[in-house]
């Protein structure tokens, strides 16, 4: 508490007017500046073709709805992202815990994860398609792989770094292995699990284009590639913005969850 006040005091020493502006107003400024920059890009002849102005992009919503793909694309992508992320998480959690607990498991699996993690998903997409075929399955597989790698490493590092004094403290209070797992390891890992969820959800979205290049019939990523062939920049930009918005909404939801589940942490920023 003390340190919180201190750090606030340091910030407040700046220009007082800037500190009086509420957060929502800052957001509005930020948005306004972005739209202004965007408009400038749409006027500049060198960039105008990539950046149709906001009205044209807004109109693209109607175009895409009338083509009957708008909602289909969003829903399709959300299904792939959601399913891939969920599967990645379900696999990452036990793998991370096993890696943290058993040295042999860690020594064998960790190098694999580090190795695959740096390969762009787009590179192994064809291999996935060869075995899994086209459609929903390969999309989910690609997202599962990418999210699993990120989340397994994050959770594992968290579990390995749990303060051992907490485990000792539990032991001298009579805790047996089972109590220690449920009452110490699990809650102590929660912040890392939440961080993993945040990173994983972001990876799921950034993998979307790769995942949907597996011969998908709908989806935000697939549509962007398709629109590329007809040089329709307005709907492309629209879809890009939608992906960004989905990302921000997911992030916000996770932040709320984080605050409720791990608000007890000493440091909460970032």
């Amino acid at each position: 508490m003390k340190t919180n006040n201190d750090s606030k005091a340091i910030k407040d020493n700046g220009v007082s007017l800037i500190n009086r502006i509420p957060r929502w107003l800052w957001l509005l400024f930020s948005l306004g500046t972005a739209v202004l920059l965007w408009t400038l890009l749409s006027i500049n002849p060198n960039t105008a073709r990539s950046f149709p102005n906001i009205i044209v992009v807004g109109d693209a919503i109607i175009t895409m709805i009338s083509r009957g793909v708008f909602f289909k694309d969003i829903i399709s992508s959300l299904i792939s992202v959601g399913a891939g992320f969920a599967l990645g998480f379900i696999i990452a959690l036990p793998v991370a815990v096993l890696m943290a607990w058993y040295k042999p498991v860690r020594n064998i699996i960790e190098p694999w994860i580090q190795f695959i993690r740096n390969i762009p998903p787009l590179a192994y997409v064809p291999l996935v398609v060869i075995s899994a075929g086209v459609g929903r399955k390969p999309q989910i597989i690609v997202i599962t792989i990418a999210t699993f790698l990120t989340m397994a490493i994050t959770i594992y590092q968290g579990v390995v770094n749990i303060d051992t004094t907490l485990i000792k403290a539990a032991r001298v209070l009579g805790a047996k292995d089972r109590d220690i797992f449920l009452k110490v390891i699990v809650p102590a890992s929660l912040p890392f699990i939440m961080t993993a969820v945040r990173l994983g959800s972001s990876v799921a979205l950034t993998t979307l284009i790769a995942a949907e290049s597996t011969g998908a019939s709908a989806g935000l990523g697939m549509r962007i590639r398709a629109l590329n062939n007809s040089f329709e920049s307005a709907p492309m930009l629209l879809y890009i913005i939608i992906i960004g918005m989905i990302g921000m909404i997911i992030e916000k939801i996770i932040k709320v969850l984080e605050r409720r589940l791990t608000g007890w942490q000493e440091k909460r920023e970032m």
Partner: protein
Amino acid sequence: MAGKERNVKVRIDNVVKKFNTRKGEMIALNGVNLDIMENEFVSVVGPSGCGKSTLLNIIAGLSEATSGKVYCDGREVKGTGIDRGVVFQQYALFPWLTVKKNVEFGLEIKGMGKEEASETAMKYIKMVDLEDFANHYPKELSGGMKQRVAIARAYAVNPSVLLMDEPFGALDAQTRTQLQVELLHTWEKEKKTCFFITHDVDEAIILAQRVVIMSARPGRIKEIIDVNIPYPRNQETKLLQDYIEIKNYIWKQVYQEYLEVRK
């Protein structure tokens, strides 16, 4: 002391602890013998590296002696047990639990009913004067308050002996003095057997009936000093002639050990 018959609470019987390091075998404790009597307050001083924390860990059952045995209430110590409560220097509070839930932790594991656990926890939270903070999380407390919670948590499960590993070492001088006084009051009331490790000679003397001086490399007991200063004690006790003499003596012994270690 005072000629009264007392039971041995903890018996440390020829405890040896060796560690295997890269440079070969390191003897941390070389045959330590000590009886801690019921209701006694024993403190241990010595330079860092003399094995005092190792000894505490062995008594607590967090570490195993290479040879020798420790008995608590006549039973051989094998692993941790709630007959031996521990207060750590780093507080070791569970940050995801409120003050009250932290104190209830051991009671719940013991299988105590909800209401009884709640009552017991509150009793000890009151003992350390934190009833207004029962529903706060550790991050909202100062270092001194955190350590008071840790003390309440250790007391709550009603151990036979309380083992304290430099509990006030991380606190500022003022808070440390305040907590010493509080601990004295608590001990004077409850007479819980205490084994207290510190590197602060003043702290060792003001609290304890006996001060164990340890020497380093290999760690063993150098001398045991009786502190024949009656309780209740307080900060003014430090002005008594007896106190000053004991302090000078112990300080010299510890300083000698410190010089030995530096060699």
